[in-house]
């Protein structure tokens, strides 16, 4: 089995092949090495990833724990707030009841005292008279204190009602002057009254105006001896609104700036010793000022120690409550923050004083003009008087509750188009929307959301209408109501042909368009609209149940602002979507314009 000896030629070929193989092997080795290196890199990356993921998980768990703790704290805080508000309400009603209970025996003391005085006079028992007079005077003073405390507690509980009436100013002044005259004479003072000729009538709570004037005049009498008290009444127009100004000037002891600062605080007269020397409850000014603020005005003061004081009452001539008071020059009190002209008016109807205060302050900062109503009845009255841009309405109120107010608002043609946002602890959106609410926010109020929600609605009013083109009468009706609830005027059309007729009559702000309709469908309608230059800029939102094909999409995207698929939403969701979309579209357009 001898093998043939390979030829030199053959060997040379083998050597060449071997060299090629070696080279290839080297390349392969390099590749393998590189590949092994890469894998190692990937592996270490993988390892790093796992570590990172673990640490992220740990962080997430930590965050969740913190979040939980935060929620617990928030819950606790809101419970504490609830309790505090409850306590505040109880305090208010306790004071009201207590004052009533105190008054009953006190009335008996005053009444029997008067009877005894009469008897003593009749029987010639003059010796008893001074003592009886002292009992009588002390009882009267106690009664005045109780009345003041009751007034204050009512103001604080938000239960002070205003009875607006229109009355002539000069006879009211005469009336007050007649009542104050004995007090003027007591310290040998003179009273001068200057009434402008154009005073005429004003609309306010007569009793409270009278009480306020009487309070300021009696203060002037108390702190002035052998001097002059001047009452000056004028009428002026500021920013288009009529104001009646009463100035009560005295030549009495006057006040330091420090005293003026404390002046309007409850239970604080300018000086603690003042009470002992001059008497009085120390509540009169605080109450008077709150009365004026409730009526949309204010009281301010100017004074120099030793040179007398001037108290200035400013009240709107057509009392509608709470419009920013024009700031007098050099006034001490800076009451209402000045709002930009034309700030939108929001009417807040809520029986809870804490909530009202919070909302008012918060929305005030956000640039809203907030008018407050403490009850449903007052809310309705103010809504009629003010025609606010938006109404925020609490649901649970004593007496007339939010639902009743909402129903009444929607039943009044003058008010039905004002968007109403319900604020409630109870989540009852369905009922709210059914009764015509524009939106529904649950308490505790999300303060971030509230101003945006208000802004959304405040702008939708009194614009051109929205054209709803929809053949389903039910759905059309619901869309109309949804939009009307937030203040839109709505034109309806049952198909494309009718819609074109409506377009000719009036240019809408926006068109909501169904696609599948008899006579003229949405696509045909769109083509018609696009041939008219003047209609091309009207935004069109398609609301359709049609399963859109590629071709449909292509046709629509050219001419339609947005497509809403009916099937993707519940009816309620769809209507909300429509509503928000309309508001957003129109705002967007205005923003650009």
């Amino acid at each position, binding site marked *: 089995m001898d093998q043939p000896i390979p030829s030199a030629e053959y060997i040379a070929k083998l050597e060449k092949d071997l060299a090629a193989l070696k080279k290839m092997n080297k390349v392969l080795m390099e590749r393998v090495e590189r590949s092994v290196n890469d894998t190692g890199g990937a592996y270490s990356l993988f390892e790093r990833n796992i570590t990172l993921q673990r640490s992220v998980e740990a962080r997430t768990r930590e965050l969740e724990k913190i979040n939980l703790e935060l929620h617990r704290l928030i819950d606790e805080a809101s419970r504490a707030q609830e309790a505090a508000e409850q306590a505040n309400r109880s305090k208010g009603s306790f004071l*009201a009841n207590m*004052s*009533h209970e105190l*008054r*009953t025996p*006190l*009335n*008996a003391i*005053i*009444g*029997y005292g*008067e*009877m005894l005085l*009469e008897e003593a006079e009749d029987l010639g028992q003059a010796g008893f008279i001074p003592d009886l007079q002292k009992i009588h005077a002390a009882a009267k003073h106690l*009664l005045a204190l109780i*009345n003041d405390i*009751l007034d204050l507690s009512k103001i604080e509980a938000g*239960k002070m*009602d205003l009875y607006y009436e229109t009355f002539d100013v000069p006879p009211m002044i005469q009336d007050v002057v007649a009542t104050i005259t004995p007090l003027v004479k007591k310290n040998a003072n003179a009273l001068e009254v200057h009434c402008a000729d154009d005073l005429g009538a004003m609309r306010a709570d007569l009793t409270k105006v009278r009480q306020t004037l009487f309070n300021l005049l009696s203060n002037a009498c108390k702190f002035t001896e052998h001097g002059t008290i001047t009452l000056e009444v004028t009428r002026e127009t500021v920013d288009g609104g009529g104001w009646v100004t009463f100035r009560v000037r005295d030549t009495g002891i006057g006040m330091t700036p420090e005293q003026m600062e404390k002046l309007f605080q409850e239970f604080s007269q300018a000086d603690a010793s003042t009470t002992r020397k001059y008497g009085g409850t120390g509540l009169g000014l605080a109450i008077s000022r709150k009365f004026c603020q409730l009526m949309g005005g204010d009281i301010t003061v100017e004074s120099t120690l030793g040179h007398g004081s001037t108290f200035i009452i400013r009240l709107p001539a057509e009392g509608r409550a709470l419009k920013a008071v024009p700031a007098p020059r050099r006034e001490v009190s800076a009451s209402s923050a000045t709002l930009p002209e034309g700030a939108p008016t929001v009417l807040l109807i809520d029986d809870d004083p804490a909530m009202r205060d919070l909302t008012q302050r918060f929305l005030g900062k956000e640039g809203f003009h907030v008018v407050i109503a403490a009850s449903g009845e007052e809310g309705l009255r103010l809504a009629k008087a003010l025609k606010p841009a938006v109404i925020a309405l609490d649901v649970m109120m004593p007496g007339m509750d939010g639902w009743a107010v909402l129903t009444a608002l929607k039943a009044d043609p003058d008010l039905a188009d004002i968007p109403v946002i319900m604020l409630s602890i109870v989540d009852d959106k369905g009922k709210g929307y059914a009764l015509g609410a524009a939106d529904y926010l649950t308490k505790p109020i999300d303060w971030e959301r509230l101003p945006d929600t208000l802004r959304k609605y405040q702008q939708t009013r009194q614009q051109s209408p929205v054209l709803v083109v929809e053949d389903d009468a039910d759905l059309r009706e619901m869309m109309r109501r949804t939009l009307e609830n937030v203040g839109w005027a709505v034109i309806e059309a049952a198909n494309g042909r009718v819609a074109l007729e409506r377009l000719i009559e009036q240019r809408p702000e926006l068109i909501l368009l169904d696609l599948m309709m008899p006579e003229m469908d949405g696509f045909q309608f769109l083509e018609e609209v696009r041939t008219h230059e003047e209609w091309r800029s009207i935004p069109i939102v398609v609301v359709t149940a049609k399963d859109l094909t590629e071709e449909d999409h292509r046709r629509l995207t050219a001419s339609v602002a947005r497509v809403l698929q009916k099937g993707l939403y519940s009816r309620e969701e769809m209507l909300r979507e429509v509503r928000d979309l309309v508001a957003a579209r129109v705002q967007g357009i205005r923003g650009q314009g």
Partner: protein
Amino acid sequence: MAKILLVEDSEMNRDMLARRLAKRGYEVVIAVDGGQAVTLAQTEAPDLILMDMNLPVLDGSEATRQLRAAPATRSIPVIALTAHAMVGDREKALEAGCDDYDTKPIELERLLGKIEALLKKEATP
């Protein structure tokens, strides 16, 4: 002298007002609740009624409404006596058909003025 029906459930208030009115020469008839007030208004035919608003059995405004509904008592003037603390009492009283109102605590001179004004109006129809 004129006969006044005083309707008041609080004993002290009733006693004070009845005695002071009697002292000024009025004949005073007393009712302690709204139901009794309606009955006595029929049988006693008073010239004027002073009606507390917050009464047991029938409250003041309901009693006034019943007085206004009956021919025999329809034209008897009624002055409502309202508590200072009770917001809305005044409106309720006038709505029910009271001719006038006065606020408690009673200031006798002021009330007498109102009584006399209404009696005079009745005398000269």
